[in-house]
Every structure is written in C-alpha cells, then in structure tokens.
C-alpha cells in the first residue's frame, strides 16, 4: 500500500508548496482581473507595473536599503560579540565559563514579548526607537542567546591540546582567538550567520514597536503597511512579497546546506 500512498502524499505536498508560490510569481506580472481569471496560467501580457508601483507607492526601495543596513549590522555585531563571549566561556578556567554561558543562554527560555514594554521605554529614552541603530542593537541582543549557544558548543568541541599548543607558543588570547579559534569555527559561524540573517531580515516585532517614521521602515513593516494601502490589490502585494523574499531565497538556493543546519540548530537549542 505504501508503494502507492507515498508518491501521492509527496506529489500533493510538493503541489501545496509549489502552486501558491507559482501563483504569486506569475501574479506579479498580471493585472488583478487577469489574476482572478486564471491564477495558475503564466502571464499572457506581462506587465512590470506592479513592481513599479510597489517600489514607488509602497516605498520598498528605501525599506530594502534599511533592511539591508539593519541586517548586515546586526549579523556582524552579533557574530562578533557572541564569538568573543563563547570563546571566553570555552577558555576561562574553572566554573566562571559555565556561569557566563548559562546566564547568556538563559535568554532562550524567555520569549521576546515578555520585555517589550520596558524595552520600548528604555530605547525611547535613549532616543533609539525611531532609528536603524536601535534596531541593530535590539536585534543583536535578542539573537545573542542562540548565537552564543551554537558557537559555544562548537568552540568547546575544539580539542584542549590545540589551545594549549597555541598558548605555549606565547600567543595571547586575542591571537589564539583570531588565528586559531575563528578559522576552525568557520562552519559554525556560517551556520549561525545564516540563522541570524533570516531572523533579522524577517523580523517584524521590533520595527513595528519602535519605528514611527516612513523613512526608517524595514521591509516586513513596509510590507505590512500594504494591507491598509492596497488591501486586495493582490498583484501589488505579490510584487512586495517577491521583492522582500528575493534575497533570502537566492541565498537559500546558493547555501542550502547552511540554511538547513542554521535553522535547525536554532530549533534544536531548546
């Protein structure tokens, strides 16, 4: 029986993923009546009008740049501070390493929503709510526990003798970190980096809480605003979806291995 059930389940599953996405991509080149008329057919007279309007009227160009800045800033900053902290936890003698590790990783158990009200007040007092720097800082903070968790596990798995050999050669911690630990940690850094990239690029909560002005919106927030402006203008919504998703999907296709390990490491942490 499995012989016949398996292909049926897999085909239906594949169609369930492919069809909606195909409708979206085709739909970006159609007018609304064309989309409603034949959602599945390729566009007969393709138009770029939806992309143009999504960028011009929806403000997606500015939002794209903001998302790129916030994501790049947060990913680099998180990797830097998390790998330094994880290195400390792996190298410091005695129990201190485990305590610091425990404190940083404890954040995994606390959902972001627990702190949003005081966080808003704190960032507002510092003048960091309606700013890209504020988003970089809050994204970095909120993804730190996962990053320390993945990198810490990896750095601990490097054999003690390698560290000792480097230290006997008279290398200080910064040298050991830079010229030995970091190169060996490259796969874990890539995995963590991908995880952070997806989290930061797609984050809606903090831009929604913090950003007030149009010019500081990131992509998910600008996209959410489409709801009000273009309620059922699906081809326009779809153009927005494609613009917002393109970078992640391109990187996914190129670096699939790291994506699967990155997002799974993010899941298995609990």
């Amino acid at each position, binding site marked *: 029986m499995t012989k016949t059930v398996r292909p049926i389940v897999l085909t239906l599953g594949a169609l369930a993923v492919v069809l909606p996405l195909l409708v979206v991509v085709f739909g970006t080149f159609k007018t609304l009546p064309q989309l409603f008329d034949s959602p599945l057919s390729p566009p007969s007279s393709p138009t770029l009008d939806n992309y143009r309007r999504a960028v011009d009227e929806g403000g997606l160009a500015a939002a794209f740049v903001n998302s790129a800045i916030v994501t790049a800033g947060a990913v680099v900053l998180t990797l830097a501070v998390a790998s330094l902290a994880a290195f400390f936890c792996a190298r410091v003698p005695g129990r201190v390493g485990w305590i610091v590790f425990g404190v940083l990783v404890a954040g995994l158990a*606390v959902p972001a929503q627990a702190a949003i009200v005081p966080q808003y007040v*704190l960032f507002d007092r510092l003048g960091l709510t309606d700013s890209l720097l504020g988003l970089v800082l809050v994204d970095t903070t909120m993804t*730190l526990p996962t990053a320390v968790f993945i990198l810490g596990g990896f750095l601990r798995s490097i054999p003690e003798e390698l560290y000792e050999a480097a230290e006997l050669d008279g290398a200080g911690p910064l040298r050991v970190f830079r010229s030995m630990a970091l190169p060996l940690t490259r796969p874990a850094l890539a995995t963590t980096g991908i995880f952070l990239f997806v989290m930061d690029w*797609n984050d809606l909560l903090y831009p929604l809480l913090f950003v007030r002005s149009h010019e500081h919106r990131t992509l998910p927030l600008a996209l959410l605003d489409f709801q009000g402006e273009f309620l059922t203008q699906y081809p326009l919504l779809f153009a927005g979806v494609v613009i917002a998703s393109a970078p992640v999907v391109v990187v*996914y296709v190129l670096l699939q291995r790291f994506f699967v390990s990155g997002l799974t490491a993010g*899941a298995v942490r609990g």
Partner: protein
Amino acid sequence: MSSTRSARSRRAARALWWFPVPALALYLFFFAYPTVQAVQYALTDWDGYSATYDNVGLSSFTELATGDDVFRNAAANNLKLTLTVVLAQTALALLLALYLVRTTRASTLLRALFFLPTVLSSVSVAFVWRFVYDPDGGLLNSALRAVGAGSWQSVYLGNPDTAVFWLALTQVWFHVGQMMVVFIAGLQAIPRELYEAADLDGAGRWARFRYVTWPLVAPATGIVVAYTTVQSFKAFDLVLGLGGNPPGPALDLLSTRVYTTFSNNRFGYAAAQSLVFMALIALLTWVQRRAVRRAT
C-alpha cells in the same frame, strides 16, 4: 626571562576577561533588565507618557484572571491554534521524514522544496495565504469551482468559528519542512541493525514502525513537539498579516493582545499581560518536558 614571560602571560590572561563584556553588557542592559522591569510595570497603571502613575498592586492580574473576556478569548484561540498545529505538524513532518529519509536525488530535491517556506518572512507567507483564502477569486475557491466542487467553497478566515484552524493550516505549511529536517536527523541516527533484527523476526511494516522507529525517534519527537508548541504559541507576524492589525476577535492571540494593549497606551496592563503570557509558555514547556520524560 621566565619571569617576564609569566608576567606577559598573566597580562594576556587578563585580556581574556574582556571578551564576554560586550555581550554581557548588551544582554543585561537591553534584555535582562527590561524583563525584570516588566514586573515593576505590571504593578502600576502607567499609560506610557504621563509623569505620574499609581501603584495598583496585583489588581491587573486579578482583572486578567477574572474580568477580562478579551484576554480569555485570546488565550482560548492560542490553545486551539497550538493544539492543532502541534498535532498536525508533528504527524505530517514525521510522515514526510519517513518518506524522504533515504538520500536519493529526488528526495534531496523534495526536502529542499518542503523546507523553502521556512525561510520566507511571516508577512510574505500571510499575503500569499490571503489570496489562497480569498472568498471571491481566491485560489482555494476557484480550484473548488474548477473541479465542480463549488458547494464546498468557504469564506475561510471570515468564519469566526473556523478562522483559527485556517490560520493553523498556514502555520503548518510555513514550518512543517523545518520539523521534517529534525525528524530526518533523528531517523538517520537509528542503527540499521535494529531493522535487520526486526526483519529476521518477521516484523511487518507496522511492527517495524511501532517497535523500532517510534521508540527510537522519540528524542526527535520531543524536540519537534516542544519547538512547535512554543513557536505556534508565540505566533505574531503571521496573524497581523492574515488577520489585520489589530486582528479581529476570531484571530486575536495572546501575542497580538499584548501588542494591542501596548498600542492603546496601557503600558502597565500590557506588562502584566506579557508576564502571564510568559508564564503560560514556561508552564507549557515544563508540562511537556515531564510528559516526554515519562514517555521515554
């Protein structure tokens, strides 16, 4: 010579103590401290901008427990959503993993395909499914009409009794591939000899699953159930994208309730709600860990 060397190494060792400082500073100042402050806020009626506020003690919590029907409605929706997603997503992810565990070219391609939605943003997924569910020209209803099943058409999210289950379906579509990957890793860790032994005992397909696969994949099942529970319990962006901001009562969840209360400038009350929300997540995780430990 040796004394300068040890002095240098001591100085070098001290440098190591600076390494965790940036991470700890960010973490303690921007996350730990606000989390503790939330408790303080929850005991006041602060509106977010006034210079003064009153200490109201635990009255926010008693109101939440007894008088707040809107909050209770959101909690009920959360429970329905999480139960549905956990059952459906875990079962489907395991099924897909069983079908795709052997590495062939076709299964590698299908794994990549099922994983794809996970990398999209929630708002994007919400917009895709808005069209799928559109009652007039949407994908589901036009498909039903096309195959002559027009009487099965529905308004989906427009029906308050079932809206939350359609939300659950979208959530499963979104994340089932991620959980499939966890199951595949779990399945691949099962030693082949156990299946060979089962074959020697003449075990059928079902017996192999019941006595080898199911007990040995249990650690992966535990991870999947725990992660899916928390992930679906915290669903936020997806609801705002599908149900609007703020969502109507049929799609209101605890996360969106906290946000709406905050947007309405009831900071003290929102802090109380967020703490209850956090406590519920902790409770769920704890109950689940116990259940998983007992089962394995």
